[in-house]
């Protein structure tokens, strides 16, 4: 029987090498795979390129990974927020690189990688500094910018329910980038709040089919970034 379950977050991330490109699901705090990120901090892989919409908050989760100096470059749409300080400080000191990508283009580039589409045209950024150096082209009298797919070696994903073949469902707006990143990484690692039997997820309700998932680890009572920050926690 196919069974993608692994026993711990530590073993799930153990083969992520230095220099890897890692997608991290979530939009701000919602859908962020905090336990997998903390396992990656314990694991210690360095020189990472990390793809996420943001750069984390406080000193837990993604912000802690960045603070631990494991990240060489961030690819994101919105690198600052009310409670982010780790990334801004390193960025201002020139200690971390930034590739800024508009949110919809970021989503579509990730989806394109998963769908085998090496490039596509979008109106987003036309006429702005973010289109500089990019190929533009007119279709039906309007200008568009060409954007390339965005792939990763690993994806760290948080979901609500998973089965042993890797079918996933999400909870509300914690879905966000997670299903796309599942498609775009060579190895997709998922933490799920509930691991259920094969057949327990209605095939009509599957959001991420198991073909996009390599490893599933149950984290039945996940922490939440906002809660950790409210408690003044930091990691490690």
């Amino acid at each position: 029987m196919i069974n993608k379950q692994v026993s711990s977050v530590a073993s799930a991330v153990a083969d992520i090498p230095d220099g890897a490109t890692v997608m991290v699901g979530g939009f701000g705090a919602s859908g962020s795979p905090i336990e997998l990120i903390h396992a990656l901090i314990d694991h210690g892989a360095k020189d990472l390129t990390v793809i996420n919409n943001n750069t984390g908050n406080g000193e837990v989760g993604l912000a802690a990974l960045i603070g631990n100096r494991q990240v060489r470059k961030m690819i994101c749409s919105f690198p600052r927020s009310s409670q982010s300080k780790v990334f801004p400080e390193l960025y201002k000191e020139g200690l971390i690189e930034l590739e800024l990508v508009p949110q919809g283009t970021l989503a579509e580039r990730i989806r394109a990688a998963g769908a085998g589409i090496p490039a596509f045209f979008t109106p987003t950024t036309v006429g702005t500094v973010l289109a500089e150096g990019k190929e533009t082209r007119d279709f039906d009298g309007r200008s568009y910018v060409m954007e390339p797919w965005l792939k990763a070696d690993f994806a760290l994903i948080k979901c609500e329910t998973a089965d042993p073949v890797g079918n996933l469902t999400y909870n509300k707006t914690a879905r966000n980038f997670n299903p796309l990143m599942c498609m775009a990484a060579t190895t997709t690692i998922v933490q799920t709040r509930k691991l259920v039997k094969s057949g327990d997820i209605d095939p009509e309700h599957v959001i991420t089919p198991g073909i996009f998932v390599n490893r599933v680890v149950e984290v039945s009572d996940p922490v939440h970034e906002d809660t950790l920050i409210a408690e003044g926690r930091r990691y490690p």
Partner: protein
Amino acid sequence: MNAAASTGWNREQMAARAAQDIPDGSYVNLGIGIPELVAKFVPEGREFIYHTENGMLGMGPPPAEEERDLDLMNAGKKYVTAVAGAAYFHHADSFSMIRGGHIDVCVLGTMQVAANGDIANWSTGAPGAIPAVGGAMDLVQGVKKIYVITQHTTKTGDPKLVEHCSYPLTGPGVVSRIYTDLAVVDVTPAGFRVVELAPGITFAEVEEKTGAQILPPG
């Protein structure tokens, strides 16, 4: 509130005025800040469906603190609720709604708007500033109508309605209409044109506080 009226519209009044221009049944995306207030002033007999770009249609008002769901946020990362008939979806589907022209109206705040509809609301371009664009460039290119709500001038009195944006653009030629504390202003092929003056405001005052040629109502 005569005093307030004589110096134009306040934040709520600007939002309420914008809400008047949104047709019944519209799919609406509201930016952070004053634009969020539009949801409080839906005209009697109309219903808007709110899109939040992090993956939801049918966004409802903020929950009571004890009813918060940590997995139910809006694009401003505030906790929200879902109305009956809501739907969740992933980011690529969400931005397909935006880029594909399915959202009827987006109401945004801004730093500057130019007379040709250019908008600059994402970066001052200052050296050393950390750039952060989010979904702003997707929204201005994709949504059918881009409305802006903004004070007519900055806190230091500089015009925000200008001939050319000095800040880096979010998008060129995309703004349809602007709601300020002083007036409702359309972007027309001939440039800015006042559609309506706030109570107690004269066209001369608007003209004086606008950094570009502006046409009177009518």
